[in-house]
């Protein structure tokens, strides 16, 4: 089995569009949550919005083929590849390089626009690029074309665990010796009125905080009021250690553990069975005892039901060590990035490990007694050495993914 290492990171998120910007937000515990509104939509919501120009990286003639999801995904993947020091064109690797990405909705803006054209405008034939822009695997396809990646190019969809599954599966390909390099992560760009309205139907979205919209997402808090949706994309470059060392690459960390397990319980309600199993499997995969973990980035979306279930899951997997392992949910700052959530939170773990700090759960002024853990409330803790760190993601449908990063 090959050791799998991280050699590149690319982030397009509500708290920054580079690792340095995200690090700054995490250390200062600054929120990236703003107010979402849309013409004709009566409600407003807090949301993690990404701003910036993502068109200029493409030829103008290609823009009709590109949903916002692909633009964000390609931007993050470009960034990760540049960070890794690998050439932009990976054709020389032929079948030894792959792309693995997660998304929940695919190109939903394109899909919804076509539905509107059909239902409201009465059109019966779509523009020819509609299918290509809206399909779930558009981001992986564009990344593969852009960087000439000819091996496995696969899209994973497992709700909020999508990008975690993509990263974990990429890790397995490399571990088993079938790949040298993988670009792995995920993205989401679904903050459009129909999608916000669909989520509103779950009664799970937080209302805007009346005093400061940036404080609307409060995981583990007695005063939490629901989750905050976000958009963005995060990609890693994963390599076999052998390949990375041979080219003199800078190694950021070892991806040491991957656990995936399903609740097999309810399509929309979480259960500790799968979450606990995923964490236990990841630790087993990494060859670690729970007490060896220095930090856990929890899924914790700030829903009334989800947070206590996750706490019970972590306690079930970690045993007595759960009292001492620092845990936080950084969704308070960047929101729930759905198909990019797992990747984003693994990136937070990586930055914490690289820069010796424990990311905080922002706005955690009053810890819910139903969520007993060793929290990192409100303020990041500095000068803390992190040897091993775990990120847990739990998706609708019951799929859970845990990933472990270790210092090399």
């Amino acid at each position: 089995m090959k050791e799998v290492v991280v050699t590149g990171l690319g982030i397009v998120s509500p708290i920054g569009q580079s690792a340095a910007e995200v690090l700054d937000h995490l250390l200062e515990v600054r929120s990236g949550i703003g107010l979402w509104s849309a013409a004709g939509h009566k409600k407003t919501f807090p949301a993690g919005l990404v701003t910036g120009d993502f068109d200029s990286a493409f030829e103008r003639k290609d823009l009709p083929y590109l949903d916002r999801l692909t633009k964000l995904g390609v931007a993050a993947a470009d960034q990760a590849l540049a960070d890794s020091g690998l050439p932009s064109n990976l054709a020389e690797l032929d079948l030894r390089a792959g792309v693995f990405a997660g998304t929940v909705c695919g190109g939903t803006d394109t899909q919804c626009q076509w539905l509107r054209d059909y239902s409201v405008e009465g059109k019966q034939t779509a523009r020819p690029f509609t299918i290509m822009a809206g399909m779930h695997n558009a981001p992986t396809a564009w990344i593969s074309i852009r960087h000439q990646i000819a091996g496995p190019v696969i899209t994973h969809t497992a709700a909020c665990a999508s990008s975690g599954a993509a990263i974990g599966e990429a890790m397995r390909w490399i571990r088993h010796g079938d790949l040298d390099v993988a670009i792995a992560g995920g993205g989401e760009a679904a903050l459009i009125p129909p999608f916000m309205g669909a989520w509103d139907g779950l009664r799970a979205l937080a209302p805007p905080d009346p005093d400061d919209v940036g404080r609307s997402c409060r995981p583990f808090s007695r005063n939490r009021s629901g989750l905050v949706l976000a958009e963005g994309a995060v990609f890693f470059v994963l390599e076999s250690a052998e390949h990375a060392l041979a080219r003199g690459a800078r190694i950021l960390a070892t991806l040491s553990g991957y656990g995936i397990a399903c609740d097999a319980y309810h399509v929309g309600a979480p259960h500790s069975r799968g979450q606990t199993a995923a964490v236990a499997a990841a630790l087993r995969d990494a060859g670690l005892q729970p007490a060896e973990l220095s930090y856990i980035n929890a899924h914790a979306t700030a829903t009334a039901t989800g947070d206590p279930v996750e706490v019970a899951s972590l306690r079930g997997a970690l045993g007595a060590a759960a009292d001492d392992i620092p845990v936080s949910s950084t969704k308070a700052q960047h929101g729930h990035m759905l198909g990019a959530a797992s990747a984003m939170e693994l990136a937070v773990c990586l930055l914490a490990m690289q820069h010796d700090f424990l990311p905080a759960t922002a706005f955690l002024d009053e810890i819910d007694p139903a969520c007993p853990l060793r929290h990192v409330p409100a303020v990041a803790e500095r000068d803390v050495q992190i040897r091993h760190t775990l990120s847990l993601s739990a998706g609708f449908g019951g799929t859970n993914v845990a990933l472990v990063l270790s210092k090399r």
Partner: protein
Amino acid sequence: MSASTWSDDAITAKIREIAKTTFGMDLPDSNQPIKDSGLDSLALIDIVMGLEETFGCQLPLERLPANPTINDFVTLAQSSLSKL
């Protein structure tokens, strides 16, 4: 302009306008293959759809040659318009 009064020059201008608006492309000379500009076959379909919306009639795409020029599009359009 009614469908029956479209001149070749007007159709040519419409094709160039569609390519510029949708793909940001300036098309080559009217007797040069459009794909020389970098547009692919799906983009050509989109241009046809744009013309169909403009004229309010279907254009038989299958009658276009494999690597059409603007002039080929004009011929196709005029053929369809003459039957309205």
